[in-house]
């Protein structure tokens, strides 16, 4: 690191600030990388905190159900309703179930589930761990010879990684059901016909890629929440920052991952 400039020379001052920012950026990247590596190392090192893992699955999965159900159902209805006029112009409203199914399975359900989970679960993990850091609960665990990383981080990241795909599949079904409610009102389509068109339009790759994507989203949400909370700075302000930046960073990364996944899936489809 450069030493602080001894005279107020503008160029040197800027260079100094820039170098410090770069230093901090690389230091942060190194910490993120080390945190991820540590997760995979600790994952295979006993003891596995099974009780805590189940508790976290309940927190991330079961407790998200009401919000996910409501959101999924409304998305199904709204998306169907908004898509109808465009298809009606071409007299193609019979394609609605296929359109809904492709949009929901491929993109909407995994993305919406991940964004909701980032807000609900990610912020909660960030705030909880941040508060534990600030009130020395993590230190207390460490001095009692319990590995806090294993107990707090591994269980939470694993829980979100497994629960987000499960929730995404559930959201898919609920959103499709919402779509059916709208379709059945306007087109008088039967339940069996609707779902046979829905399932006829999707391929194995659609479902498989959505599940894999959701695993990645789940891992991201857990990892970002844990990282931000675990490295929270001292004080209540730090807890707030950890919760807030858990959501913002996770959402940002989820969109980037969605874009990357889209490119990969398109490349696979093209072959």
């Amino acid at each position, binding site marked *: 690191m450069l030493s602080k400039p001894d005279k107020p020379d503008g160029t040197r001052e800027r260079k100094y600030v820039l170098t410090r920012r770069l230093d901090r950026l690389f230091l942060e990247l190194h910490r993120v990388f080390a945190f991820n590596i540590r997760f995979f190392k600790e994952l295979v090192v006993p*003891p596995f905190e099974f009780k805590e893992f189940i508790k976290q699955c309940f927190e991330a999965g079961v407790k998200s159900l009401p919000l996910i159900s409501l959101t999924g159902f409304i998305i199904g209805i709204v998306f169907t309703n908004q898509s109808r006029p465009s298809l009606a112009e071409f007299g193609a409203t019979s394609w609605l179930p296929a359109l809904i199914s492709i949009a929901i399975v491929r993109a909407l359900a995994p993305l919406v589930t991940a964004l909701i989970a980032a807000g609900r679960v990610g912020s909660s993990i960030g705030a*909880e761990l941040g*508060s*534990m850091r600030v*009130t*020395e*609960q993590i*230190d*207390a*665990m*460490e*001095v*009692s*010879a*319990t590995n806090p990383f294993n107990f707090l981080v591994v269980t939470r990241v694993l829980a979100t990684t497994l629960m987000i795909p499960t929730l995404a599949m559930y959201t898919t079904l609920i959103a499709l059901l919402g779509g059916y409610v709208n379709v059945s009102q306007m087109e008088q389509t039967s339940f069996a016909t609707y779902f046979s068109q829905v399932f006829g339009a999707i391929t194995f790759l659609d479902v498989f890629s959505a599940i894999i994507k959701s695993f990645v989203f789940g891992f991201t949400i857990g990892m970002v929440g844990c990282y931000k909370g675990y490295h929270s700075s001292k004080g209540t302000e730090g807890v707030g920052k950890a919760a807030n930046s858990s959501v913002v960073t996770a959402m940002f990364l989820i969109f980037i991952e969605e874009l990357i996944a889209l490119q990969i899936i398109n490349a696979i489809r093209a072959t």
Partner: protein
Amino acid sequence: MKKEYSRIDKEKKVISIRGLKKSFDEFEVLRGVDLDLFQGENLVVLGRSGTGKSVLIKIISGLLQADEGDVMVLGSDINRLTPKELDALRLKIGFSFQNSALYDSMTVRENLEFPLERHAKELTKNDRNRIIELVLDAVGLSQSINQMPSELSGGQRKRIGIARTLILKPAIMLYDEPTAGLDPITSIEINKLINDVQRRFNTSSIIITHDLTCARATGDRIVMLLDGKFKRQGTFEEVFNSEDERVRAFYNYNFID
């Protein structure tokens, strides 16, 4: 309140520190600390806020690493231990945090069960319950077993925090500001508890404080941290029988102002 006579084995050092130095960025907190803690002794470390008292016990428990110096705890050099060896040593050290550091999401029972579930797996559920009742009885809070930490007062939280550290029968107790933020009556109860723990569990303790009532009531020996080094050492009277302005100011603030 003056402390009663303790059984101290001056032949047996449980902690021995030589030339300990620790800095944070450019700020040198500890500048060559030498310290011995004997078996059965309550040692009080006095000093103003920000003088590195808590840093000292965090280094002893392995939460922070020293920049320089030797830290021997129960015969092991804390700087040279593998993580596994450090964990084994930590089981013999009880750390009572300033804000108790109880796990917020767990009841009192779960807080106490937490270390037992991990480090005393051979115990049956009945054995665990018996030990929990025993330590809760020792801190006088048997009735709080099913309460959440948020339902406890500051003094009760401190007691439960001490109970949690006692549950694995440590040889050394480290108290970080045990009476901070408590009213005088509760502070006296905590001081009594510290002495009780010393007698009943035969522990050696380091008590970090700037509360002179606590220091006088619990300390067999008192050291004063000034400018990153221990400047005064001895009994309460020996330490404060000084012309040093800072030492006098410390005494006056606690007992006169």
